[in-house]
């Protein structure tokens, strides 16, 4: 047991560090570049950065050479990501494309399509989004209503998607729609990739409880999609979607700060009963709880990395990450505001510790417990896939989709 890189990994890490040092600014104690810029400026900068990474051979290093990668072990991608996290570079715009759309195209698209679409996706030249969730199909994605029907060489799509990150600046999207409502819900779905600039697509931002708009509603009115852009067989849409969602669970990362470090710093600076809050035993106990969660996840990742660097498949322990980190973020933010007592309600960054990070996260964190699989769905997955508990008894599995009660 040791935490050192192998000589080969250490050499690669040094190379990466040197390249980053020459090409990017170290992270400073201020909002990251992605938070400082508006979406348009951020995207332009992110595209430039992704292309630079790709030219240097650091983007998607574990992807096959044919897809623009280097065909190197996954561990090198992880080492690069670890090192890049120390630098203030624009991130986030390509995570859906690289994490979900790229892999699904690599598995299901034709050779010609892969050659056309994957390299620009990898280089950040074309941005991709994912169109699965609907107003009536969140956790129950297979219950989606967006319809598609065949018309000559095309399909015609009508309906609505929701919670689509980056739809307004995306060039391409992956879409699941229902081609036959008389079949059971999982059997009547078909999967496509679509041009987001197609006529009939209407995109509206969603305003979130924190005031931001990271997601969109996407409306489809008689949108034509060539049959050549179908991924998988007609009726195989659910299997393709499941492959993609598995990739999503790996792609959705950890919660951003604040974490135990930020609370500790805050507690050292705040007073409770006339002494530093950090001397209060209740405060210490809370921070200790978050510390073990945070370190537990960090060391769990180290276990995953070990498996990867030995060429093994990581164990199921990775599945706990988002469940733990999303709730921790919510609890840490709430507690941070509490430490500021009556003043904790103020959200003006210029007046507040950590530029009101705790207050912002308080409003942002509920979304993290829902995005990419709710706390409840993730617990079902752990129980069924990891612990082997029996599946839910389903009332909607074997009946025609059109006969399933819908409620509101």
């Amino acid at each position, binding site marked *: 047991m040791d935490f050192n890189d192998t000589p080969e990994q250490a050499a690669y890490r040094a190379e990466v560090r040197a390249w980053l040092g020459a090409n990017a600014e170290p992270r400073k104690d201020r909002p990251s570049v992605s938070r400082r810029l508006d979406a348009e400026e951020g995207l332009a900068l992110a595209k430039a950065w992704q292309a630079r990474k790709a030219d240097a051979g650091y983007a998607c290093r574990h992807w096959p050479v044919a897809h623009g990668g280097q065909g190197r072990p996954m561990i090198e991608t992880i080492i690069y990501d670890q090192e890049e996290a120390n630098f203030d570079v624009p991130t986030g715009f390509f995570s859906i494309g690289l994490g979900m759309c790229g892999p699904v195209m690599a598995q299901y698209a034709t050779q010609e399509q892969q050659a056309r679409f994957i390299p620009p996706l990898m280089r950040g030249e074309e941005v991709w989004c994912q169109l699965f969730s609907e107003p009536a199909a969140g956790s129950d994605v297979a219950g989606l209503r967006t319809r598609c029907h065949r018309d000559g060489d095309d399909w015609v799509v009508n309906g609505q998607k929701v919670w689509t990150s980056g739809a307004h600046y995306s060039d391409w999207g992956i879409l699941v729609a229902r081609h036959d409502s008389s079949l059971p819900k999982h059997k009547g779905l078909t999967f496509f990739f679509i041009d987001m600039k197609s006529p009939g697509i209407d995109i509206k931002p969603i305003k979130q409880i924190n005031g931001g708009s990271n997601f969109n509603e996407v409306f489809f009115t008689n949108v034509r999609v060539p049959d050549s852009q179908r991924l998988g067989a007609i009726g195989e849409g659910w299997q393709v979607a499941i492959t993609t969602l598995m990739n999503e669970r790996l792609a959705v990362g950890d919660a951003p700060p604040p974490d135990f470090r930020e609370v500790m710093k805050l507690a050292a600076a705040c007073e409770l009963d006339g002494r530093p809050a950090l001397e209060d035993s209740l405060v210490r106990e809370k921070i200790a709880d978050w510390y073990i969660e945070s370190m537990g996840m960090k060391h769990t990742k180290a276990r995953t*990395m070990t498996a990867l660097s030995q060429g093994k498949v990581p164990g199921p322990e990775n599945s706990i990450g988002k469940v733990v980190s999303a709730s921790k973020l919510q609890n840490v933010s709430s507690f941070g505001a509490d430490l500021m007592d009556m003043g904790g309600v103020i959200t003006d960054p210029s007046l507040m510790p950590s530029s009101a990070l705790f207050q912002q996260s308080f409003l942002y964190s509920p979304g993290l417990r829902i995005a990419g699989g709710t706390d409840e769905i993730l617990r079902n997955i752990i129980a069924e896939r990891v612990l082997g508990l029996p599946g839910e008894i389903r009332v909607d599995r074997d009946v025609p989709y059109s006969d399933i009660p819908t409620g509101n």
Partner: protein
Amino acid sequence: MNFDFSDAQKALKQQTRDFLRAACDTTVPRRVLEDTDEPFARDLWSQICANESPGIAIPEEYGGIGFGYLELCVVAEEMGRAIAPVPFSSSVYLAAEAILQGGSDEQKERLLPRLASGESIGTFALSEGPGQATVANLQATLRDGRLSGAKMPVPDGDVADICVVVARDGDGASLAVVDLASEGVSREPVDTLDPSRSHARITFDGAEAELLGEAGQGWAVKDAVFDRAAVLFSMEQLGGADACLQMAIGYAKGRYAFGRPIGSFQAIKHKLADMYIKNELARANCYYGAWALSTDAPELPVAAAAARVAATQAFHFASKENIQTHGGIGFTWESDCHLYYRRSKLLALSIGSERVWKDRLISGLERQEAA
């Protein structure tokens, strides 16, 4: 990056698990729990000693087999899984560690071989009753090589041969080794939450005591010993927590209510998923603690405290929710659920409560911050 046990360590773990599955199924801790005349499973202890397990991490020059602490950690996890009713933790994690940390070469040469072979059982006495022991409130006193005062609960205090005692010495505290067969020592068993592990009240009345380490400097040695022991206790707690999870999964799959396995209900699924989450967080923290222990890393105090807190929480949660998953049968004496529930509280308090360890954790982080 190699955050995993070696193949040899994994083999040792499997071997220990197989051995304990055969030699220590739950009828063994139950037998000790129910039989007031059997303070520990002597037959099992002889086999453990024949396997040389107590000497795993004790250096060869002191009669051990000198494998190392990662090996001891994998054995500890299996001891915890089996809720083995033997004085392993008292003798190995506490007494032997105290002698290794505080003793002179002569003391190590004299005392450790008998602990390594299991010929003699050691223990460690700090607590004097309800309430956290501190240097300021210690009543047991060491003066001119004589020890007076009472300690309770002392784990395995009724069966141990030697005891390392923390006693007041002038303005500070000292560690001293006492031969429990010597004059001026009287002891009687005390009832505890987990009778499968015996505990005693030991009264010292001017008993002869041999100083371990420097006079008045014992508290710091105690802290160092507890940091090391915390990793080993947390490995036991991890094993116990995993045993509870497996027991709850087995029951939830086989027990039917409302025409279906109760494990198909989300209320049970989520409870068990939470158990798994806590156990995995604990496992990651424990492995890091094991690494810090095995390498004497400067991170040990924080790593040990984190392992201890995480494993205490995991075993507590798993043992109580295992009862809950079982429903009524889980509250009966005949069910094994209470064996784990009892053990989880015993281990949670053995070297100081969760609150104390959380405080040590934050103090460690403050020191790191200041450095």
